[in-house]
């Protein structure tokens, strides 16, 4: 009992030391944050956002930016779903152990680098704009979906597939007539789940120049047009909640 307590105490001490070290690293510029002057400055900054900007021309631009973001998230997810399915087949070990190792490594690599970093890299290759954002989303999401699809394929009962193969069906046909219908609901719910994540990502990718609402936000904030920025923020929140609601409805209709 005392041994356990001692261990718990040591762990707590280590944790507190770690926390203290972290805080010590940062205190340099946090102190000024609590000064009266800083508070006034922040309040002024926050007040600058009200009221959000309107105007037909601006709202039109905002609607276009929202649609652009929506299109990026949708296309990116779609591309990733297709690429993820193709990559999942070797990653589930269907084409041998070498292909399995290689494809898992590739998927892990795609997944490990966040969308925003991919976007910063893709922008260098494909130029500024939503196309780069779409590609960045697709690249990262391929890694995530490929891994999830591969797990779904591995966990699916093999009997239906084996049954068809035993009666002389070809590999491709047997896959589409047994394995695919078995995993389809799970694949669809993974895709929807990633779409919900990707609409959030698409909204901010523009910060590195990859189009959509993020780019608008970055632009207006850089020029300190805070009221415009406030409208963009509202549009972002609205768009994300709309996509969540849509995705939820599709999910419910699917599980019926």
């Amino acid at each position, binding site marked *: 009992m005392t041994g356990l307590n001692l261990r718990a105490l040591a762990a707590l001490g280590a944790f507190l030391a770690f*926390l203290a070290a*972290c805080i010590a690293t940062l205190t340099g*510029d946090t102190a000024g944050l609590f000064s009266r002057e800083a508070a006034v400055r922040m309040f002024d900054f926050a007040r600058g956002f009200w009221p959000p900007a309107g105007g037909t021309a601006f709202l039109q631009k905002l609607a276009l930016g929202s649609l652009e973001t929506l*299109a990026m998230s949708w*296309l990116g997810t779609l591309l990733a779903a297709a690429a993820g399915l193709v990559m999942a087949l070797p990653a589930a070990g269907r084409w041998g152990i070498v292909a399995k190792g290689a494809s898992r490594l590739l998927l892990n690599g795609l997944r*490990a680098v966040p969308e925003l970093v991919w976007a910063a890299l893709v922008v260098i290759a494909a130029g500024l704009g*939503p196309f780069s954002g779409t590609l960045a989303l697709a690249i990262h999401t391929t890694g995530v979906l490929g891994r999830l699809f591969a797990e779904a394929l591995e966990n699916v009962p093999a009997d239906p597939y084996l049954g068809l193969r035993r009666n002389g069906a070809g590999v491709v046909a047997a896959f589409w007539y047994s394995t695919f219908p078995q995993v389809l609901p799970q694949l669809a719910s993974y895709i929807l789940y990633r779409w919900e994540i990707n609409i959030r990502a698409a909204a901010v990718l523009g*910060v590195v120049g990859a189009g959509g609402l993020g780019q608008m936000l970055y632009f207006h904030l850089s020029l300190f047009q805070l009221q415009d920025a406030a409208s963009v923020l509202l549009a972002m929140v609205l768009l994300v909640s709309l996509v969540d609601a849509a995705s939820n409805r599709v999910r419910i209709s699917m599980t019926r």
Partner: protein
Amino acid sequence: MTPAAPLDSALRDPAWRGRVSAALLFLALLAPAGYLAEFNPATLWDPATVLALSRFLGTFIPPEYALDFLKLVAAATWKTIAIATVGTLVAFLIALPLALLANRQLSISALATGRMALLPATARTAVRWLLILLRSIPELVWALLLVRAVGLGDTAGVLAIGLTYGGMLGKVYIEILESADPQATRSLLANGAGRRAAFLYGLLPACLPELVSYTVYRWECAIRASVIMGFVGAGGLGQQMELSMRMLAGGEVLTMLAVFVLLVWVADQASATLRRWVQ
């Protein structure tokens, strides 16, 4: 096969019409989406792009490993960890009081009637809305705003994580606390114990492992997020990475990507170990 029954012209797949309309809808959405996203794979094969890209990718090899640079990366990495950790601490300090405020089990007015009095009920709803507001704005956007409010550097990162993750932690804390068995808390409250005592001796012991486990998981996410936030100037590894990318110094980018992947992996392992230990 024996001869089939006479062909029945009424035999049609009832799913067909739905499928055709779904396919048409899909195509009708795909075209404008492609247009809006300026979808044009041809740009990828454009000789100028290929040249620029291959030149940039060429600089990736070999990764940069000069001692000075590694020191810089090490410092930036530590700063990233610090931002994530302190950010999570701030989030915790925001989330815990709000979660307690919003908790129904600790309500004394609900004890007798089963319903809360108007004022506390309003306060609880307001807390929930505040939490939704905090987490519905992505941490990167918070960082973007805060960089302008408090200046470039670590503080913006810490606050951005604190605000977003405060919203997320608060929501999940509420869920965890509400799903706990209310019996212990209620009997303490009914016997006249104060709210704080009821929390400390009734609710907390039952929920502690789950609360800690989720907080640790969020810390792991915060590590990843703090790297990303560096891209908008909120300090740490991301800020260095953005600089190197802007200078097209591929070797430096590669080194930092490797460090990033390693960092995420270590955080993932540490978080898994901690959570196993807590449960």
